[in-house]
């Protein structure tokens, strides 16, 4: 599904150029469950942003479904992203002015889906993550765990094939964290590819592959037997 070849990404602050990712080569197949680990500042989030096409690499090639998209234009990337990729963030990133229902529906608004179909799918996914009874609430009225459920629901409502989760449990207590991991596990079992960035070794352990990053390079990869 995804193939990265010698990917480089650097940031410039004033005169100082920081190499965030250095020659990353990586292959992710459909149905994988990958955990990315490493200390703060090692480039985990940068890698996830590149995978999610939220940012573009400085050098190297990115193949998505066999297509080299490394110099695609923003609008082309948007089109691929909205068909295939769902995101979950550490800080949930819900829109404060929209209700739970509206936040989830937002992910479908940019697809050509009828209102009726949208409502149906939103209802379905809300029930799936167990927040149906909170549909009309504003994000500020929910606990952190509930907010992250909304974020998960939003990430999957478009039936995306790839879920990218950036420390999805970082702001949650252990019970709620485990809940979220269960949900991701379930999605993966249904065939969705999942990539998560995490500090939590126990959570990483639920993935089939664990990639360790250090100073922008992959230093180790553990694969579990299927």
């Amino acid at each position, binding site marked *: 599904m995804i193939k990265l070849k010698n990917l480089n990404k650097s940031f410039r602050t004033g005169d100082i150029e920081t190499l965030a990712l250095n020659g990353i080569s990586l292959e992710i197949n459909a149905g994988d469950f990958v955990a990315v680990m490493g200390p703060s500042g090692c480039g985990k989030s940068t890698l996830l942003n590149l995978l999610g096409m*939220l940012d573009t690499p400085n050098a190297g090639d990115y193949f998505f479904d066999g297509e080299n998209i490394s110099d695609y234009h923003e*609008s082309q990337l948007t089109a691929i*992203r909205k*068909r295939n990729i769902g995101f979950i963030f550490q800080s949930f*990133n819900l*829109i404060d002015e929209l209700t739970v229902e509206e936040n989830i529906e937002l992910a479908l608004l*940019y697809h050509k889906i009828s209102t009726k179909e949208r409502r149906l799918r939103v209802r379905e996914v809300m029930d799936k993550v167990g927040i149906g009874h909170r549909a009309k609430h504003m994000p500020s009225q929910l606990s952190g765990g509930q907010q992250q459920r909304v974020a998960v629901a939003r990430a999957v409502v478009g039936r995306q094939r790839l879920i990218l989760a950036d420390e999805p449990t970082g702001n949650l207590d252990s019970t709620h964290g485990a809940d979220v991991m269960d949900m991701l596990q379930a999605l993966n079992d249904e065939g969705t590819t999942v990539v998560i960035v995490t500090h939590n070794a126990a959570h990483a352990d639920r993935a089939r592959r664990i990639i360790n990053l250090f100073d922008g390079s992959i230093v180790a990869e553990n694969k579990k037997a299927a």
Partner: protein
Amino acid sequence: MFGNYLTVAIRHLLQNRLYTFISMFGLAVGLAASILMLLFAQDELSYDKHWQNADRIYRITVTTTLPGKTGQSSTRLSGGIGEPLFEYLKEDIEYFTRFDHINPFFSIGDAIHNEYIRRTDKASADMFDFEVISGDIHKALSDNSGIALSETLARKYFGDEDPIGKVIGLTFLAANRDFQVRAVYRDLPDNTVLRLPALITINEADSPWRFGWLDDSFYLYVQLKPGADITRIEPQFNDFIDNMMPLPSDFGADVKPSELISLSAQPLTEIHLKSDVSGREMKPAGNMQSLAITLAITSLVLLIACINFTNLSTARSTQRAREVALRKVLGASRRQLIIQFIGESILLALLASFVGLVIAELVLPLLNNFSGKQLGLDYTDLSAAGVLVLLAIAVGILGGIYPAVVLSGYKPSAILKANQSSDSRQSVTFRNLLVVVQFTIAVVLMVVTVVIYGQTQYALNMDTGYERENKIVVQHTGRKGVREKRDLLKQRMLSLPEVASVTYSIVTPSSKKGYNSDFFVKHPDENAQQPMYAVGRNIIGYDFFRTFGIQLLAGRGYSPQYAMDGLPEWNKAVGNNGIVGSIVVNESLSKFLGYTQPQDAVGEIVKIPIGEIPGSVVFGDIEIIGVTPDVKFHSVRNMVRPEAYIFIRSKDAPLIDMTIHFTGSRKRATRQVENIWRELFPEIPFVQKHLNQLVEAEYEQEMRISTIMTTLAVLAVILACLGLFGLATFSAERRVKEIGIRKVLGANTSDIVRLLVWQFSKPVLLANLIAWPIALWTMSRWLQNYPYRLDDWLLLPICLVASLAALAIAWGTIIGNALRVAKAAPVKALRCE
């Protein structure tokens, strides 16, 4: 504490330079406009208040209601009314004085000049406190050989020499004699309705015709005795007219003179703004309505600026929620917080008023140049400075109160909890509401401006029925010396290859001369209550219709081929039987006389006074030889009424202007005409105008108002958009996270731009909905003032265009910003979190 407030305030203002600039600059511009318009208004309202006896001086005006005409008010009346009125009301009136207008030739040594000066009574020197520089103004006005000169005129002719005792030869009306300079007075200030370049006394023998009861050559002023009450005096005017005014019996036996002529008194200090007879004043009059409209619009502009100020303060304040929360945690009371935020707002407003003053100073020369006034900011005037400071403080409080109250009411726990937007729904609604108000004002102003401009252009360019292009109007052809050689002059003009046609007349379009002049025809209905009917009179010479390109509907114009063409001289044809002359009438008069078709009127007889025998007017049979369309010859401000074009069979007919229709270059034609004039009349100045200029001059006032309105409207739109820009920028910044999320979820650039643009289109669209009825109602009413006006339905497309323009400008304002935000990589937006 105060130091801390100030530090935070200044840092905050500097940190948010864009918003500070928009708030402050907008407010400064609004205040500058207000300062200038208040100065202007102050000056307009100050007219003639400076005279010592201003509160006791009144001008007497006359309303003439002749049969066939609606009552016509005039600021001038007969020279014969002053003295009898004074005698009649001697108990209450202390002085009376008259002013008329003459245009004499000044001979000083060998040189001859042409000046406009005034004749007056000697009481002027007692009623108006002239500042005499040299000589004695009482002496100058004591007999009819003295003249008092204004400083400007004295300097023009005598330089630095002392003019007292010098002799000037004056030729005017029926007079030709020497005057001795006996006084020089300081030029009158600009804020007076009087224009008095030089004064001589009135001598009835110089112009006996200006003293007939229906003449209107003189302004009449009276000064009441101390304690006299004008409301008690005014009712006696009717008695005066009935007792003192002889009326020819032909007006009907039962008609009281006061039914035809009525007098009223107008306070001197109100003349400038409340004179409703434009063009009949010594100077262009002001207009209370226009002044009020201008001031109202200025306040609206200021309101828009204040709204920007409030809106941006409210918007920005939400960014300071954390500061508020921390201050509260550290023990600040709500009152202290309110004081802090309002204080900041006042500080900004005071800074803005300072900038506003600077802008006003910079723009003042332009305004002076444009208005012809000498306005200046007086920094020693403490009350004016006080007003400005108070205004700034008021704006500061108004702009600051909402955010101060809202901010200070936040609960610190809610704010300090992360991931919480602090911009409440109410404050967003509040801001949108204010944007609606701003754009409503802006759209209404746009419509108003376009309609006023459109109406002025319409009046200026409407088909008046005569040709305006390529006409030179030469004055003074009624003067002694020219009058006798009119035929020769015309012949010489026609010999020029550039000249196509030449005519003489008493009236030229828009000259205002002769508009009021009437003559009488016998009412076609034998049983009519009033046997005489007043119709408009245009005295013309041969070739008039050809020169002005007027096509007759039926019949023909006057021609030298017919010896009996035109009216006979007064009393010359009395006793003749049968047809004694001919006349050309306009379509309205032809209809009034009972002819449905113009051609029916031709060859018919109309009865017109041709002379008098003791006690009665003699009517002669006059044949109608031609009918013209209803040419709007005088002014398009009034409907065309029944009018006649009269030719008088006399060498002395008052044909005071010559109009030349030329081809080719105007400059060349004018030069050649002038050469012939100088050759034939070396002693008489050559005075010419282009007909187009005469017509445009009539609309100067409207053009001026329309320019002021346009400026203010443009300002309003700019300020409203500036505010919108600020809000859009703010909103885009505030929504960075949301935009990031939307992009992550698949929104592309155009989705985001649409989202942001739509957010601000809503209030603008709503504003249009509100603005339309207001604009339509106001402007259709305003148009009712004009007999010839734009069609009402045109208001709709004007509204539509104004709305589209407002929307387009608003979009233009927002879209750049929205694009910038929408194009940013989503990861940047999310990184802010």
